[in-house]
C-alpha cells in the first residue's frame, strides 16, 4: 500500500472532510486576473501525481489556513481510486476540481478523524530536518520547484512518523465537536483517471503518469523488468539541499532481503550521455542518504526513453558486466498509435 499527502484550502477542507472527497484543480487565476486552464504538461503532472493511488492507500491532508500556520490532518484511507468528474462539489466560482478520489477515516484510527486531529506544519518540517521524512524537502510552492498538491510519501517510516505526531498532539490539537461524516458516492459522470493519460511520447509527464499507473497496478511487464516493488514515489528529492528530484523511486527487496532502490529517470524521447551522467550522479548522491545502508542496500539506476545514444548502451553494458556499485537498467518504451498506452522493453 502507499501513502499520500494532499494540499487543500481551509475553505474546501470543511466540505472535503464531511463528504470524503478530494479534488485537484485544473487551472488558476493568472496575473491578468483571468482564470486559465493549466497547460497539457501541467495537467498531465496532476494526473501523474494521483494515478498511482490505490484503494486502501493512506492519506494525510495539508490544510492551508487563511490566517496562521497550515496544518497536517489525518489519517484517512482511499475508498475510491482517482477519477475525473466535473460535477460541482465545492463553492468556488471558477474551479470544479475534477481530478478526484474518495476517502474515509482510517478504520483503526477513526478517533483521530472524528475529532479532526492535526499537527502544525512546522512539526512536519521538523521531521524533514531530522531526515525522518526524506522524500520531500517542503510542502510549500517554491520558485524553482513544480507546484504540486498531491505528493506520494513513503508508506513505511514517513507515514508512521506523521501518524505518531498526530497521536502525540491529539489531546491539544483536536476539535471539541465530533465531525459529521456524510460520505458521497461516485456519480455517473465519474471516469477512471487512467482514461485521461494521453499524448504518450509527446509529454514527459504523460509517460511518467503511465508508469505511475502501471506501478500501482503491479503491471506484470514492469514487474518482470524491475522485480517486485513494495512502494514507489515520484518527484523524490535526491538530497534535501540540492532541490533536485528523481522522477520515480521504486523500493523493493533484493534477493538477500536487503533494501533495493531503483532510481528512474524518464525522458520523452532520446536518452543521451548527459542523461546517463545525471542518473549516475543521482545514484551516488542517494547512496549517501541516511536511509541507505551503503554496505548492504542495492541502488539501481534506470533510464526510460524511446531511444538511446549508442554510447549510453555501450557504457551501461560494460559497467553492468563489471557488477560493481549497482547496475543500470535501460528501458525502451514504445507508445501505441493513439498515444494512450506504451509497451516497455529492457535493453540492458
Amino acid at each position, binding site marked *: 500500500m502507499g501513502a499520500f499527502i494532499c494540499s487543500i484550502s481551509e475553505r474546501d477542507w470543511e466540505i472535503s472532510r464531511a463528504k470524503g472527497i478530494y479534488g485537484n484543480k485544473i487551472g488558476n487565476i493568472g496575473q491578468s486576473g483571468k482564470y486559465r486552464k493549466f497547460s497539457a504538461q501541467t495537467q498531465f503532472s496532476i494526473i501523474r501525481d494521483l494515478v498511482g493511488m490505490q484503494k486502501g492507500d493512506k492519506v494525510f491532508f495539508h490544510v492551508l489556513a487563511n490566517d496562521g500556520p497550515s496544518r497536517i490532518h489525518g489519517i484517512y484511507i482511499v475508498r475510491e481510486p482517482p477519477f475525473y468528474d466535473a460535477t460541482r462539489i465545492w463553492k468556488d466560482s471558477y474551479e470544479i476540481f475534477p481530478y478526484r478520489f474518495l476517502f474515509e477515516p482510517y478504520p483503526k484510527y477513526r478517533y483521530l478523524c472524528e475529532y479532526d486531529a492535526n499537527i502544525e506544519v512546522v512539526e512536519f518540517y521538523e521531521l524533514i530536518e531530522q531526515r525522518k521524512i526524506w522524500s520531500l524537502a517542503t510542502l510549500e510552492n517554491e520558485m524553482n520547484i513544480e507546484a504540486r498538491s498531491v505528493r506520494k510519501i513513503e508508506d513505511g517510516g514517513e507515514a508512521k512518523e506523521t501518524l505518531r505526531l498526530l497521536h502525540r498532539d491529539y489531546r491539544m490539537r483536536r476539535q471539541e465537536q465530533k465531525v459529521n461524516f456524510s460520505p458521497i458516492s461516485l456519480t455517473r459522470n465519474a471516469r477512471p483517471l487512467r482514461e485521461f493519460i494521453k499524448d504518450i511520447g509527446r509529454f514527459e509527464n504523460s509517460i511518467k503518469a503511465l508508469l505511475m499507473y502501471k506501478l500501482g497496478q503491479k503491471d506484470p511487464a514492469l514487474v518482470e523488468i524491475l522485480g517486485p516493488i513494495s512502494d514507489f514515489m515520484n518527484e523524490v528529492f535526491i538530497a534535501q539541499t540540492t532541490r533536485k528530484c528523481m522522477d520515480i523511486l521504486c523500493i523493493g527487496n533484493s534477493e538477500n532481503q536487503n533494501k533495493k532502490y531503483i532510481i528512474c529517470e524518464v525522458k520523452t524521447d532520446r536518452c543521451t*550521455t548527459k542523461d*546517463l*551522467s545525471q542518473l*549516475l*550522479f543521482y545514484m*551516488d548522491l542517494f*547512496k*549517501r542518504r541516511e536511509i*541507505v545502508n*551503503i*554496505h548492504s542496500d542495492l541502488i539501481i539506476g534506470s533510464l526510460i526513453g524511446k531511444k538511446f545514444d549508442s*554510447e549510453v548502451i*555501450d*557504457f551501461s553494458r*560494460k*559497467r553492468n*558486466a*563489471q*557488477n*560493481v*556499485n549497482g547496475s543500470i537498467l535501460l528501458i525502451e518504451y514504445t507508445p501505441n498509435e493513439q498515444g494512450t498506452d506504451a509497451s516497455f522493453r529492457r535493453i540492458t
Partner: protein
Amino acid sequence: MVKKLSILDPYKTLCKDLYSADIFDQAIDGLLFLVEKDDGEQTLLIEKKFVNNSEGYLNSGYYFIQCINSVCSDEQIKKFRGLLEKVVKQKAKGNYMEVEPIIVAQKYDDSVIEFVEQYNKMQKRKPIQLFIYEE
C-alpha cells in the same frame, strides 16, 4: 590520457617514498601519509592532509593506487573498481569525491582505456588516472 613514469617497480618505489614516482607533487598534494597497503594486490591507500593552525593536521581526502606489473585488462579494471568501492564505503561513507583512484600498469588494453575515458566523462566522481611505467 595515460601518463608515463620512468621507474622500474612502481609499488616498491611508492612504498619507499610516495613523492619519488613523479605522481605526486608536494606543492599540490600537500602532506601524504601511507595508511594502508596490501602487498598481494599491490594497493596503497594514501591520506592527504594539510596543516590547520588550531587543530594540527586535517584530512583532505585520499588516493587509492593499484600497481599492476603487467597489462591492465578488463578483468583487472573490474577488480580495481571493486577494491575502490570498498575503500570509498569504509573511508568516505560512499562519497566518491573523497578518493582519487590511480592505476599504474605496464600497458593497458584498448578496451580499458576506452572504458576509463567513458567512466571519467560520465561519472561525476574523481577521475581514474592512468599511468604506465618503463625504465
